[in-house]
């Protein structure tokens, strides 16, 4: 398989559908005053987390600091993130795609894979037209655009959706793979990071086509399994599993919160971390999953990161257990005198509980804790997360996260409809702006 790639068109038909500037588009689609203007979201984090195409055109890039952005473009409209609205729209995005096929892999808040293999006949159409219809339904009903890649593997579909943006539809049938891959630098292939790119370039592999056509025997010693899978996918032969359902939401649970002003008070910073741990555990319990690993990360004021990964001898989703292990790691991570601005926890290696009866009564104790957490979760779901929490997170639960102008609240939260409370809102996104 040194020169030949797969033949034909689509032995399988995979779409990758990717929101165009998703958060900024959510904002522009509901407020006509923002249309045609540079808009960024992320005011509360002091960085751009999403930029409208008008903002991108001015050279604003992701994670750029707000004060840098204002230097380039004083007129830019900076909005606080309204994750509630983005999540509602994200769910609608997946639901619309599911009208066409049940096999949808939610890969992130703004992207998904859809396996439409075999649906062209019952729906009396072809794959390309199905992609067009999905794209059109999304635009008409949600009010903003998505880019789509159509190919026979996930890696190729992903390359397709990036090919032309915004509102692009790029189909890569198997027989045309070489044309596309010849123009695709190997480092831009989904899943190939900078380190692997360096290795590959040193081996004379510059484009995705070079990788697809590479001699297996020559390259294999340098490639680990995931990269062999990517190579196979580039050749049009599926190697990655298609995981219908919202896998991404479950593969790991991550909670990160920024706070201002930055703090060098270990108690306060740990309180922030503790709050994240409690929230992440609650989410894991909702999914019925336990973490085998936990990653904790502290971000300093100068955007440096200190992180540690903790392997748990016994998988858990109990906050009190994770808080105990997190505390000792935190003490080694935290350096006095450094100011921190954010903490993050990621629960990894999630799995369904596998409990065996044991001799020493531990399973009884676990069952007891399970019930306690069930009650805690019920109370928190009904009355809000601030009602019950552990001692260490007190400071984080009972002080504003952002002091000063950065305590920006999204428009939707500032203006409640009669009958809504701060904690609970109608689950329908709102248009904002003036109406006459």
């Amino acid at each position, binding site marked *: 398989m040194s020169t030949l790639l797969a033949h034909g068109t689509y032995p399988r038909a995979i779409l990758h559908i990717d929101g165009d500037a998703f958060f900024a588009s959510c904002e522009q689609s509901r407020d*006509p005053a923002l249309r045609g203007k540079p808009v960024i979201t992320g005011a509360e984090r002091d960085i751009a987390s999403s930029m409208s195409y008008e903002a991108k055109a001015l050279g604003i890039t992701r994670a750029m600091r707000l004060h840098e952005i204002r230097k380039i473009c004083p007129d830019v409209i900076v909005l606080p993130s309204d994750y509630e609205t983005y999540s509602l729209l994200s769910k609608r995005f997946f639901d*619309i795609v599911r009208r066409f096929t049940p096999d949808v892999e939610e890969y992130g808040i703004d992207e998904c894979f859809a396996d439409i293999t075999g649906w062209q006949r019952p729906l009396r159409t072809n794959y390309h037209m199905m992609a067009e219809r999905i794209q059109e339904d999304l635009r008409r009903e*949600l009010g903003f655009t998505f880019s789509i890649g159509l190919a026979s593997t996930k890696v190729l579909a992903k390359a397709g959706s990036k090919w032309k943006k915004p509102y692009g539809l790029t189909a890569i049938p198997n027989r045309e793979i070489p044309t596309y891959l010849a123009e695709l630098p190997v480092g831009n292939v989904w899943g190939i990071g900078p380190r692997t790119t360096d290795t590959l370039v040193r081996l004379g592999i510059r484009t995705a086509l070079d990788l697809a056509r590479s001699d297996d025997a020559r390259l294999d010693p340098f490639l680990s399994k995931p990269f062999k899978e990517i190579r196979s996918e580039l050749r049009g032969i599926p190697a990655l599993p298609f995981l219908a359902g919202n896998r991404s939401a479950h593969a790991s649970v991550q909670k990160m919160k920024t706070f201002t002003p930055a703090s060098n008070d270990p108690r306060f910073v740990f309180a922030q971390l503790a709050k994240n741990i409690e929230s992440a555990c609650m989410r894991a319990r909702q999914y019925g999953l336990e973490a085998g690993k936990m990653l904790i990360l502290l971000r300093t004021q100068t955007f440096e990161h200190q992180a540690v990964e903790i392997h748990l001898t016994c998988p858990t989703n109990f906050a009190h257990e994770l808080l105990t292990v997190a505390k000792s790691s935190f003490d080694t991570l935290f350096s006095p005198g450094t100011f921190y601005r954010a903490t993050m926890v990621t629960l990894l290696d999630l799995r369904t509980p596998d409990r065996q009866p044991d001799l020493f009564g531990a399973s009884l104790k676990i069952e007891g804790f399970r019930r306690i957490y069930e009650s805690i979760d019920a109370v928190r779901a009904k009355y809000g997360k601030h009602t019950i929490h552990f001692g260490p997170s007190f400071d984080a639960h009972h002080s504003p996260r952002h002091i000063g102008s950065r305590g920006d609240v999204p428009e939707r939260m500032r203006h409640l*409809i009669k009958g809504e409370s701060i904690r609970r809102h*109608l689950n*329908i996104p*709102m*248009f904002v702006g003036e*109406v006459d």
Partner: protein
Amino acid sequence: MLIVICSLLTIMSEIPFENIRSFFDEKKRMPTYREIRDDILHTASMKQTKRFVDRLVEDGLIGRDRTGKLLPTEGFFGVRRLGYVEAGFPSPAEEELLDTMTLDEWLIGNREATFMLEVKGESMRDAGIRPGDTVLVERGREPKDGDIVIAEVDHKWTMKYYKKDRQGVSLIPANPAFKIIRPKEELRIEAIVTAVIRKY
């Protein structure tokens, strides 16, 4: 009013009979006479118990084997319970509720395309839409004559009646104090109003 009563059951015996069924579901066997007396009818009288069982046997809901022990019959499992009748008043029967819809379903047609908007101006006053009202709007539908639509005009939302004739599209307010809008260029109709909600 439609009163749903199971054909075979009398008001008196229904609940104790249900209890026999739950007993069976739980224990996978039929109760003894004594168990019926003590745990189901909660009485001291074996005579009353026997009368109760006799009636169920008569109705074909349970049977007896040769030794007189109770057996489930086809009727025992086959009775479709459509609702309880208590003190002569029918309680809501599940069967009937299947044909009802929630307020959400009634108000919202295409869920994925539905958004909310709070009304701020007086321009649709005579259509009964007032400032502070919440309207539900649906995106992506072709507007028809007479629909109330949300359009984007000069970077603002406007809510008006939609009218299309030989001269083109016009947006008509439901308030004489406002002017009719006749867009010269292409007009962007963003959504169609499907409901108005006013909560007091």
